[in-house]
Structures are given as structure tokens and as C-alpha cells.
């Protein structure tokens, strides 16, 4: 990571105003969004948006032409700008030709994207932002830190200072009063302006209509009072038909601000009359600026499904810690990282993509159903393909595949860890490694790897067989989880086999953009696990599970291993995570929970990979309760714990902040145990609880339940 980025992160997480604002926001947003979506079929809505916008991406030139013709037939002038420069030049030339001195603007991210205000200023034209948030940040000389709430990072004290300076009067921090000051200060500007510039939230091709979705009422004035109206619209705003707009009007206010509908929606088709009886001049600048390149890209064309609601920012555990300015460009958060990679250069997104922990929360909530983490990973993959992996990462990720060598090295590390290890934890590390144990102890390397322990487990004779895929954490740090898995399955009459040739699952390699290394792992594991020879493949790690169950087939397709795909699919079909398999076995009455209640209170942490990639979240809760525990849900149970595999090493500050919030949510339940499906999360959470001196015990579901059957 470059130093500028690190400094920005340090400043952001050290800024209490920002921290408080974002914390209040994240908590309120989830509630208001859920309420706004009551009674709405979100899946169906997503499909409608995806269908309309998917059609646009596939037929971009045609839809653009339809819009142009329809809008021109109604009297608008339409200019298709291929680049930011063309868009700026068109607007500037128009303004100069018409003798425009001042411009009023309503909020437009497209105009931020092309730095339109600065450009107009160079040509002697004053552009005034009239959206309250935009006006605030422009007075402060800043960039928006959020697509919908541009000034979310600012406290009322700062706003009061800015406004006081602007109007030359000392103002209090009373927010309604500040809002009135803005109204008064800006009202004259609307009347004086020669030109109004707006964006548009939707552009309807069949009718040539612009749809503006706003709350303050400034866009209505921008489009009504000046004689010339220029709308700057990204091509991704197009929808084919009038009725397609209904889906976006349903989703946008609900996802953006938790409203059923914003205060104002304006549908503008062609020029409208002014109060002196003349007709307005309406210019629509449809801006490409690399959007058609994105539409042609098999992976990135799905960005056309983005309705710019910013909900991906509102639920991102990283954005909610650092805010928008860390992203360094106009578009922020998950979708912002993707847009920056295209609108700027792929390279500029290098540090940004590294901020993504890949928890998948944004994908789940996106009303366009965009696989945002998948696209960020694709940027990472392309960067690695182009620039190569840093040597240390490459060496490390390659090494992970070689279990024999990892054994030897870890054994050396085990000797090395002696001075730091106590009761199974490493609590302090020296020098540059200190950050890793600042808020979280690390588990020590196990005395014996699980594959050695396994040899001594006496299993009963069974009819059925399960191949156990252990993953690195169980193998090297948590053999006790492996033992619990074997003992549980034995009770159901399933013998566990441990294919010796299994290797790292490849999740870490893939997450770091090294798809070839990941595919190598996949090929080896598919062969080693020989799904044909067993009844089940059982996995007790959510990350390994996501690879085996969900990722391998696509990964192999993407890396030219087509021939392995059928075997990958066979493997996926037989693969179960521990909780799902146990639930199935209880259902089939092959496992019987001991009777009796009152074993204690358990809270369950949803691992990102289990909940959002694999779709396992109900099963562990069911089996925990079936075994007589009381389940106490924690707040934000499915928010990332902050480990994220190698993320915790690369972004240790952010990782620790996520952990801190998770620990508080766990403590607040008053549970005796926190259970989870993933040994990775266990490293993070167990270590965090140890470091904070908590009484709550972290357990893998298998360890928690092994003696309850």
C-alpha cells in the first residue's frame, strides 16, 4: 500500500467526528432500509432492474440511438460525448456561445467525475452547487465522501464555520437554522443563473425522458428557472422503456435513504415553456467516458445494473470505518473502486481494491445484484496478471500449497514461538509483528498436526464414508476441531477418511488475485478427494467450503482447466459443511441429540463465506438449539469479524477495528459461548476474547456439539 493511502486511513480512523457519524449512520440505515422494503419482493425487483439494465449493456449503441431520436423528436438537443473532455468542451462551448456567466447545478456525480466546475471556472464561468451537501463540500474545497450524502463526514460545527464565512455573519450550530441560511443564500443564485446543469437518475430511451430523483427541491428550480437546461447523463442511466423506470423508482429511494419515495421526482421530456412564453433550451449530454468499454467486457458489463444508490457503501465494514476520502477519487466504496479502475486507470485502483475484505455484504444488498466483491477480485486478478505479485506474497502463496514444506517451516516456527506462547496463545510479538497481536492473541501452532492426530483415532466399522477436507487452520492450529468432526460423524455411522494428498483450498491465492495458483490447488484437491469413492466430503472451514462447494468450477473455467470442471461439479455436489451435514443426519435420525436443556447460552457468528457464499446460516442455529442450547442472537451477527485471511496482515488496523466491534456485539449478548463455522473467524474472535480478558469462550460448532449426541 502506498504511504498516502496509509496516512489517509490513519487520519480517518483517528477522526472521532467521522467515526461517530459513520457509526450512527450504519445503525440507522439498516433499520430504515428494512422498513422501506417491507412488502417488496427484493429478489423480483433485482431481476427487473438486472433485465432492463442488462439489455442496455448488451445493446448500448442501439438504446443510445433510440434515446437520442426520441429526445430530439421532442425538441431536446442530444450530444453523445465519448470522453470526459468532449463532455466538458460541449458544455463550455455552449455556455460561452450563449453568454452564460453563472450556472446553478443540482447534484451530479457525472459532473464530479469530469471535474466540470473547475473546467467552467477556467473559462470564466461560475458554477454554483445548490444541493446542500454539495454546496458544503464545495465551500470546503473537498470531494464528496459519499455518492448520496456527499458531506456525511462533516460535523455541524464545521458546516457552521463554512457558512459563517460565506455569508459574513457568525452562525450557531443549529441545523435547521443552517439549512435556512443555505436556502436564503442560494435562492438568488437560481434567479440570476443563465444556465442550470443537472444530472439524471434514469434516462428512458423510448420516450427520451430524463428522470430526476431528489429531496431538497433544488433540481426542480435548476430545471425551471434558468433559460437553458443541460443534463449530463452517464450512459449507464439508460433504461429501454417507461415502465422499466418503475423498478428503479421503487429501489432507488429505498436503498439510498430508506424512503418509499423521495420528496420530488421529475420526468422531463423535451423543453418546457418559461414564464415569458418562450421555450427553454434543453441539452442532454450522454456521456460514455469508458462506459461502452465496460459494456463490452464480459465481467464488467454488470456495472450497468448499478443505480448509484450507494447501499454498497452503507453496509461496507471498511467504508464505515474510513469514510469516503480514503478512496481518493470521486466514486467511493465498493462500486467506487470498480468505477475508478475504469474511469481512471486500472493501476489507480491498486490500493483501493486492497481495501476490500471480500465479506460480500454489498453483493447481498445491491438492488442491481452486482457481484461487487467478485469484480474487485477481477481487478486484483488483472493487476496480478499485468504487474505480477510482490515476491513475498508469491512465495508465501505458493508455499501454502506444499503441505510437507509447510509442516517443516511451521515446526521451526513452533520452536520460534516458544518465547511468546503461553496456554496455547501468542499474546505479544516483537517489532514489526507487534500489530498482529495488539488486540488479538494468535493461536499457537499445534503440538501435532491433525493428520498425525487422526492416525490414532480409533473409528468404529461403518457403512458410509466421508472424506474430510481439513484446511490449513484445522491441520496446523486446531486439530481439536478435526477430532470433534470425526467423533461426531462416527456417531452417525460414518467413517472419516483423510486423503493424504489434499492441499490448501486455494481461497487465499484466489483472494490475492493469483488465480493460477488457486487453480493448481483446485486440481490437486479434486484428485485427492476422489469424490467418486466416498459418500460425502465434509468441510469444517467456511472458507475452504466456499472454494470446494462454490468457486472451483468457475475458477477452473477462468483458468483454462475446462477438462476438470465436471469433476469439480461432482465434488461440489458431495460436499457438505459440518453444520449442514449434521442437520441432515439429525433429520434422518442418524444423530440423536441428548435430551435435556440448559446447557447454556450461545451466540452465533456468521462467517462471511458461510452465510453469503455458501448460504449456510440456519443450519448451525438449528443444530445448536436442537442440542439444548439457548440461542442469543448478537447485533450484526453476519458482519465480518475482520480476519479476511491475509487481509488481517495487510490491513491490520482495519482488521482490528472490525474485530473490536464484533467483540462488543458478542459481549452484549451475555452468552457463555460464541460459536462459528469457520476456524479462520475462530483465530480472530478467540484471540480477541483472550486479549480482552473475556469470560466468553469461542468454539467451532463441532467442538461445541461433539458431546451432545
Amino acid at each position, binding site marked *: 500500500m502506498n504511504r498516502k493511502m496509509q496516512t489517509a486511513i490513519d487520519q480517518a480512523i483517528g477522526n472521532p467526528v467521522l467515526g461517530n457519524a459513520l457509526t450512527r449512520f450504519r445503525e440507522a440505515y439498516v433499520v430504515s432500509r428494512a422498513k422501506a422494503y417491507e412488502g417488496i419482493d427484493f429478489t423480483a425487483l433485482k431481476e427487473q432492474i438486472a433485465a432492463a439494465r442488462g439489455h442496455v449493456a448488451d445493446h448500448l449503441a442501439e438504446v443510445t440511438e433510440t434515446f437520442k431520436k426520441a429526445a430530439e423528436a421532442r425538441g431536446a438537443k442530444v450530444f453523445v460525448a465519448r470522453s470526459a473532455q468532449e463532455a466538458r468542451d460541449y458544455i463550455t462551448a455552449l455556455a460561452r456561445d450563449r453568454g452564460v456567466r453563472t450556472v446553478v447545478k443540482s447534484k451530479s456525480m457525472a459532473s464530479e467525475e469530469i471535474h466540470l466546475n473547475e473546467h467552467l471556472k477556467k473559462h470564466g464561468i461560475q458554477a454554483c452547487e*445548490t444541493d*446542500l*451537501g454539495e454546496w458544503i463540500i464545495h465551500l470546503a474545497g473537498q470531494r464528496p465522501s459519499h455518492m448520496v450524502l*456527499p458531506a456525511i463526514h462533516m460535523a455541524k460545527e464545521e458546516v457552521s464555520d463554512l457558512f459563517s464565512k460565506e455569508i459574513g455573519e457568525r452562525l450557531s450550530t443549529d441545523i435547521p437554522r443552517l439549512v435556512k441560511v443555505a436556502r436564503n443564500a*442560494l435562492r438568488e443564485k437560481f434567479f440570476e443563473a443563465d444556465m442550470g446543469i443537472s444530472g439524471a437518475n434514469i434516462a428512458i430511451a423510448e420516450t427520451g425522458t430524463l428522470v430526476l430523483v431528489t429531496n431538497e427541491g433544488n433540481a426542480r428550480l435548476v430545471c*425551471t428557472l434558468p433559460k437553458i437546461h443541460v443534463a449530463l447523463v452517464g450512459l449507464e442511466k439508460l433504461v429501454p422503456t417507461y415502465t422499466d423506470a418503475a423498478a428503479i423508482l421503487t429501489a432507488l429511494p429505498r436503498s439510498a435513504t430508506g424512503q418509499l419515495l423521495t420528496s420530488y421526482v421529475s*420526468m422531463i421530456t423535451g423543453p418546457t415553456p418559461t414564464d415569458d412564453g418562450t421555450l427553454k433550451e434543453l441539452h442532454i449530454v450522454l456521456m460514455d467516458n469508458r462506459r461502452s468499454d465496460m459494456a463490452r467486457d464480459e465481467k464488467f458489463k454488470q456495472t450497468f445494473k448499478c443505480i448509484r444508490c450507494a447501499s454498497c457503501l452503507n453496509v461496507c465494514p471498511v467504508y464505515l470505518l474510513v469514510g469516503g476520502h480514503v478512496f481518493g477519487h470521486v466514486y467511493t466504496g465498493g462500486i467506487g473502486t470498480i468505477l475508478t479502475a475504469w474511469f481512471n486507470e486500472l493501476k489507480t485502483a491498486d490500493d483501493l481494491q486492497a481495501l476490500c475484505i471480500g465479506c460480500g455484504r454489498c453483493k447481498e444488498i445491491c438492488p442491481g445484484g452486482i457481484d461487487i466483491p467478485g469484480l474487485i477480485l477481477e481487478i486484483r486478478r488483472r493487476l496480478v496478471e499485468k504487474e505480477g505479485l510482490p515476491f513475498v506474497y508469491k512465495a508465501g502463496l505458493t508455499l501454502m500449497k506444499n503441505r510437507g514444506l509447510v509442516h517443516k517451516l511451521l515446526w521451526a516456527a513452533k520452536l520460534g514461538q516458544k518465547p511468546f506462547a503461553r496456554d496455547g496463545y501468542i499474546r505479544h510479538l516483537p517489532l514489526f509483528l507487534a500489530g498482529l497481536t495488539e488486540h488479538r492473541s494468535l493461536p499457537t501452532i499445534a503440538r501435532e498436526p491433525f493428520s498425525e492426530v487422526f492416525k490414532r483415532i480409533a473409528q468404529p466399522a461403518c457403512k458410509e464414508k466421508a472424506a474430510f477436507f481439513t484446511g490449513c487452520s484445522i491441520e496446523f492450529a486446531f486439530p481439536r476441531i478435526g477430532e470433534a468432526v470425526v467423533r461426531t460423524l462416527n456417531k452417525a455411522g460414518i467413517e472419516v477418511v483423510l486423503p493424504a494428498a489434499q492441499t490448501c483450498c486455494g481461497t487465499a491465492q484466489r483472494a490475492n488475485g493469483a488465480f493460477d495458483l488457486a487453480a493448481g490447488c483446485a486440481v490437486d484437491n479434486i484428485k485427492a478427494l476422489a469424490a467418486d469413492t466416498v459418500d460425502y466430503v465434509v468441510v469444517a472451514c467456511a472458507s475452504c467450503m466456499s472454494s470446494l462447494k462454490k468457486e472451483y468450477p468457475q475458477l477452473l473455467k477462468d483458468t483454462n482447466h475446462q477438462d476438470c470442471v465436471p469433476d469439480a461439479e461432482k465434488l461440489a455436489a458431495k460436499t457438505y459443511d459440518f453444520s449442514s451435514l449434521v442437520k441432515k443426519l439429525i433429520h434422518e435420525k442418524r444423530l440423536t441429540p441428548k435430551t435435556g436443556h440448559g446447557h447454556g447460552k450461545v451466540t452465533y457468528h456468521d462467517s462471511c463465506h458461510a452465510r453469503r457464499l455458501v448460504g449456510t446460516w440456519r443450519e448451525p442455529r438449528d443444530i445448536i438449539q436442537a442440542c439444548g442450547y439457548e440461542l442469543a442472537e448478537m447485533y450484526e451477527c453476519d458482519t465480518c469479524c475482520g480476519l479476511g485471511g491475509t487481509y488481517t496482515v495487510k490491513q491490520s488496523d482495519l482488521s482490528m477495528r472490525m474485530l473490536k466491534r464484533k467483540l462488543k456485539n458478542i459481549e452484549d449478548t451475555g452468552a457463555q459461548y460464541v460459536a462459528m463455522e469457520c476456524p479462520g473467524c475462530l483465530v480472530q474472535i478467540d484471540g480477541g476474547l483472550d486479549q480482552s480478558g473475556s469470560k466468553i469462550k469461542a468454539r467451532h460448532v463441532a467442538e461445541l456439539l461433539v458431546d451432545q449426541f
Partner: protein
Amino acid sequence: MFDLFKTRAQAVSAEVHRLPTRNGTVDFVLNLLASEKVADAAGFGAVWANGSFLTGVDTETLARKVPGLSFAVTRERAKEARIGITQMDWGLANTGSLVADQTAVEQRLASSLPWIHIALLPSNRILADIPALMQKLSPDKAAYIAFITGPSRTADIERVLTIGVHGPERLVICVVDEPWEVNS
């Protein structure tokens, strides 16, 4: 339909009044103008945008009776108005929204510049939602379709909801049972 419309409109801080007749509605409006001290003075005027509701209403007499009230809406008059009155074409129950073809600039000036917007809506024109509206009103026929849902609002400073930024800070909706001709 009305009950849901009312609930949803009130939930976004609109005021909703149900009135049986057009004459009664004119009286309601005049009372509100009086209580808001509408007068022939800067900042205290009222503008009433022309529309079919006013067919048969003696606007000349009304304008004489109420100093400061004008039926000729210009940008300057709307700017100095405390109250703007416009008629709306449709209501949407599930969002508590009002919809009108506001191609005529007077409709936009009178509903966006004053502090208080009084919106007149026939009670038989309340539809369920946006898809239902799309069957009735299309951009083919209207150059400016305006949806209004509650008063102007912002949460741009510390996410504190504040009413009345660039548009009206009060939206008073009169739902009238006696119908009138609506063009669109």
C-alpha cells in the same frame, strides 16, 4: 385508498384534509391564507396557478378580496409568495405522493418557490402506485411530470432530517370529494 394515501402522506410530514365540496375547499384555502397573514407585501403574497379547479370560480373577485393573492403566476410573484396553490392530477396511495403534469411553468413556480404549498386533489383520482400511474400518465403527453411526496427535506448535515430546504416546508393536501374536469 384514501386512508392509505393519508397515512403515507402524513408519515412524510404532509398535512392531509378531506373536503366535500369545491366551494368549501376555496373557503378552506382562504382561511389558511388569512391565518398565514397573506398580504400585498414582499414575502407575504400568495399565488394560485390556473387550472380546471378554478373553472367557474370568480377569481377576479377573490383576488380583490384577498390582497396579495394573484392568479397570474410569474417567477417574481412566486418568489415573494408565502403560499402557492396548485391542483394535482393524481395521488399515489402507497407512497402518499401527488402527481401532476406540470408542463405549464406556473404549476412548477407555485409549487416549488413558496414556503407553503397547498395541493388540491380530487378524491377519485387516487391510484395504488407508480405502475398504476404509468397506465394513466405518460411522458408522450406531458413534458414535465412532477411527483411530490411531502415537503422539501434534507439530511445533509449530520444526517439530521430537516424540512424545507429549497422547496416548501409545508405541504397541505386538500383531497376534495366533489370532482372537477382534469385534462390529463
